[in-house]
């Protein structure tokens, strides 16, 4: 959520440090800061409010209170601690069908307002938090939501039927196939009509039973304010979070309001928001307060939580005193009552609906005291109770296969086609899960067989150890599978591949020491490892890890490699390594590989044949560029007396 430094200042006052310091404090005591930017002479902090704090901290007052707590500085203005003096009205009636779905519904009447543009300061604040200014009434509802976290809605009171000189609200479930006309979403949206299923909670105009709003999600077209609006009713309510969430998700209308409601802000909040918006509207739209109706059939009292000093310290690894823990709880605004030695009954301030168990307070104490005070302690070492058979034998198979020249791949679980379909895959090539590894292994062989020169490999040999799925009568089952693949030619399977494959299978046979039921298909072989594991002896200890050299990965060039062969007679008894070094030096940096592929001796002379592979990371190399380099290589060889064949 975007938060303005100057707006925070309204609440925190002179104790508020500069934006960088605010960001630092929030980062280490409360929330991550995604960015800090400057707009005009103000700073905007993008605060990543944690999901459990969406109820109280998706608002400027909430962030300000958090800073007040961290700084141990009381707010200079706290709209949630103001005295509420409500003038009741009997001109508004509220009928709530289900108090669990709508625990509270308040409506305030203001008469004689003038619709116009909001003052510039208010428009500017809305723009900075990402909200387009519309008119002073709508802006006021948005402003108070960003200020206090309570979503609000404003109705044109004169659009209601003038029945009995009362405004009648009915909060009920929708009827199946009932329709509602909703207001546009955002700047480019258009109004839309939604057909309801009957599970949604709606606000209806009571005398005509017409739906006028989708409760907690979106206002309706029915009583939309317009340029000529004179009299208004402002709604501030509390709805069941699960219900709001289900409705918003199912209809695909996730709004700033629904996001706040689904996180269960306090049921006490609506009247404080009414007070705030009432004052604001009088200031920017004129008019007169016409009283408030407060239907609150379902209130909940904050439950005190027992916090024990021993548990606080034993979970955090700290040695705080009772006085310190009490002081930290009080800084939160909680009331603390000592119930026994080193035990306190703590009651959260009403807006902190997230504080419900002792561990919640332990977290608060930890972060306010400072997580940096927690000292690292290594747990006492205990003997290993169990060797994981699957991991043990997987590593054993890996070692055997790597020795036999096979490289390990890990491929996608998702397939374009198959028998086991997912309910909700995003992409069409991720619709199914794999039932074998062989298909992926074949694709890997195809893709790599064109790179054998660059890789310096006579053939591509790969394997994968991974989970595959099967459909059975009892549901979806899965097992660990091993697949091997080999490819000697660039243009697909050839019978020669099977010989390489057998070497891999033999290596596994040796590593596991049992007969194995391989399943094969052109150039690949697959084994159900899970089925074999029970036959294998229980390992007593993990084998030592093979040597792990330090690797710094270099990105793959997107350009093709070019290969050239050179065969030469050396003058004396130069080793292949010496020849290779010369070739590398004369060919330069673009020559990324020199592979010896043939050696023979004739009449006392030795011939070496090397394949040189050229690759650029910035372009496709042309024939003539490579020819120029090869000329240099020939010259270099000739200078050493080597005869290029």
């Amino acid at each position, binding site marked *: 959520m975007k938060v303005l430094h100057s707006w925070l200042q309204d609440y925190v006052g002179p104790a508020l440090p500069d934006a960088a310091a605010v960001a630092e404090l929030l980062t280490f005591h*409360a929330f991550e800061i995604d960015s800090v930017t400057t707009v005009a002479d103000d700073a905007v902090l993008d605060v990543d409010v944690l999901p459990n704090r969406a109820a109280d901290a998706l608002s400027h007052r909430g962030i300000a209170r958090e800073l007040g707590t961290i700084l141990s500085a009381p707010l200079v203005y706290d709209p949630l601690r103001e005295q509420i003096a409500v003038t009741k009205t009997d001109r508004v009636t509220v009928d709530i069908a289900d108090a669990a779905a709508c625990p509270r519904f308040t409506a305030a009447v203001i008469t004689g307002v003038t619709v116009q543009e909001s003052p510039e300061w208010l428009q500017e604040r809305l723009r900075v938090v990402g909200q387009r200014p519309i008119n002073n009434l709508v802006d006021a509802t948005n402003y108070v939501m960003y200020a206090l976290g309570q979503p609000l809605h404003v109705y044109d009171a004169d659009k209601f039927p003038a029945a009995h000189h009362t405004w009648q609200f009915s909060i009920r479930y929708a009827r199946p196939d009932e329709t509602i006309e909703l207001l546009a979403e955002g700047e480019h949206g258009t109004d839309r009509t939604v057909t309801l299923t009957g599970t949604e909670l709606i606000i209806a105009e009571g005398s005509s039973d017409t739906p006028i709003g989708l409760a907690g999600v979106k206002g309706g077209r029915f009583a939309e304010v317009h340029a000529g609006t004179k009299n208004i009713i402002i709604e501030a309510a509390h709805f069941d979070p699960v219900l709001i*969430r289900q409705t918003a998700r199912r209809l695909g209308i996730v709004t700033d309001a629904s996001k706040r409601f689904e996180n269960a802000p306090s049921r006490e909040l609506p009247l404080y928001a009414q007070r705030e918006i009432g004052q604001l509207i009088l200031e920017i739209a004129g008019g007169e307060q016409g009283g408030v109706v407060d239907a609150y059939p379902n209130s909940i009292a904050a439950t005190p939580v027992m916090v024990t000093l021993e548990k606080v310290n034993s979970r955090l690894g700290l040695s705080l005193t009772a006085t310190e823990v009490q002081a930290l709880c009080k800084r939160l605004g909680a009331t603390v009552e000592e119930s026994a030695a080193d035990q306190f009954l703590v009651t959260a301030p009403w807006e902190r609906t997230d504080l419900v168990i002792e561990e919640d307070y332990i977290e608060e104490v930890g972060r306010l005291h400072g997580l940096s005070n927690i*000292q690292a302690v290594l747990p006492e070492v205990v003997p290993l109770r169990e060797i994981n058979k699957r991991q043990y034998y997987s590593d054993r198979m890996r070692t055997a296969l790597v020795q036999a020249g096979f490289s390990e791949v890990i491929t*996608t679980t998702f397939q374009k086609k198959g028998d086991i379909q*997912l309910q909700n895959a995003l992409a069409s090539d991720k619709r199914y899960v794999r039932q074998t590894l062989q298909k992926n292994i074949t694709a890997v062989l195809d893709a790599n067989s064109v790179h054998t020169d660059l890789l310096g490999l006579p053939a591509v040999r790969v394997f994968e150890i*991974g989970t595959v799925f099967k459909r059975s009568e009892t549901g979806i089952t899965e097992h660990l599978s091993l697949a091997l693949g080999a490819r000697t030619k660039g243009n697909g399977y050839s019978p020669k591949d099977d010989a390489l494959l057998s070497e891999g299978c033999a290596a596994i046979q040796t590593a596991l020491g049992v007969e194995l039921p391989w399943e094969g298909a052109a150039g690949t072989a697959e084994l159900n490892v899970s089925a074999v594991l029970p036959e294998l002896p229980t390992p007593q200890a993990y084998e030592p890890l093979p040597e*792990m050299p330090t690797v710094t990965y270099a990105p793959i060039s997107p350009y093709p490699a070019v290969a050239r062969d050179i065969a030469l007679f050396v003058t004396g008894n130069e080793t292949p390594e010496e020849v290779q070094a010369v070739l590398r030096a004369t060919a330069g940096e673009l020559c990324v590989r020199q592979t010896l592929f043939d050696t023979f001796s004739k009449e006392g002379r030795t011939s070496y044949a090397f394949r040189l592979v050229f690759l650029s990371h910035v372009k496709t190399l042309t024939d003539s560029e490579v020819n120029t380099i090869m000329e240099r290589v020939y010259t270099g060889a000739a200078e050493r007396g080597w005869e290029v064949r």
Partner: protein
Amino acid sequence: METPLGHQHPLSRMISEINNIFSSLGFVFAEGPEAETEYYNFDRLNVPADHPSRDMQDTFWFRGKDVPEPTVLRTHTSPVQARYMDAHEPPLRIIAPGKVFRNEATDATHEAQFYQVEGLYIDKGVHLGHLKGTLEYFFSKFFSGKTEVRFRPSYFPFTEPSVEVDMKLLEGNSKLVGKWIEVMGAGMVHPKVLTDAGIDANTFSGFAFGVGIDRLGFMKYGVEDIRDYYSGDLRFINQF
């Protein structure tokens, strides 16, 4: 041409290394299914249906007609915690490395499938300091250099308190030396997660952490694109 040695995949190689480090502290390598029930993937981790915390992980679901109870491709390795706690009495120490899935668009830093390792330590008197100590030990071994760890406040439904973990390598030649890097989420196991597994949350406490192994590879080897791990491209794998 002689047959050169093959190469182990960096992810499985890191898992072997992680296991090597944690087994030296007595952490058992535990495992669970990739096709996981909603019950273990969410409910048992204090992530109830229709709760906003479900939004933290976009989920692949199996079709209702294929499975006897709602089943997902596990979105994290955390369900292994609950499964292991069901089958074992505390004290217990486990790591659970494995493949996890998120239903989201892919780019250089996001994949619909990636690897995580879960850690769990439950005993009498386990506290956040033990988490810090264990992670400093792990990172120092894994990155071959003394490493410092710091915590920032965070939220996960299955831990309370929850922390975000940053690490800083204090020595060595890596370009990471001297920089704070955000690496993982962790915290003290939520009492509900313990209680649901039949463990007395007053007697026992524990820490849990979950870290992306792919991301550890970014730091350890300088890998820049997560998709390279799953490309099957030997030009990538044979560098390891």
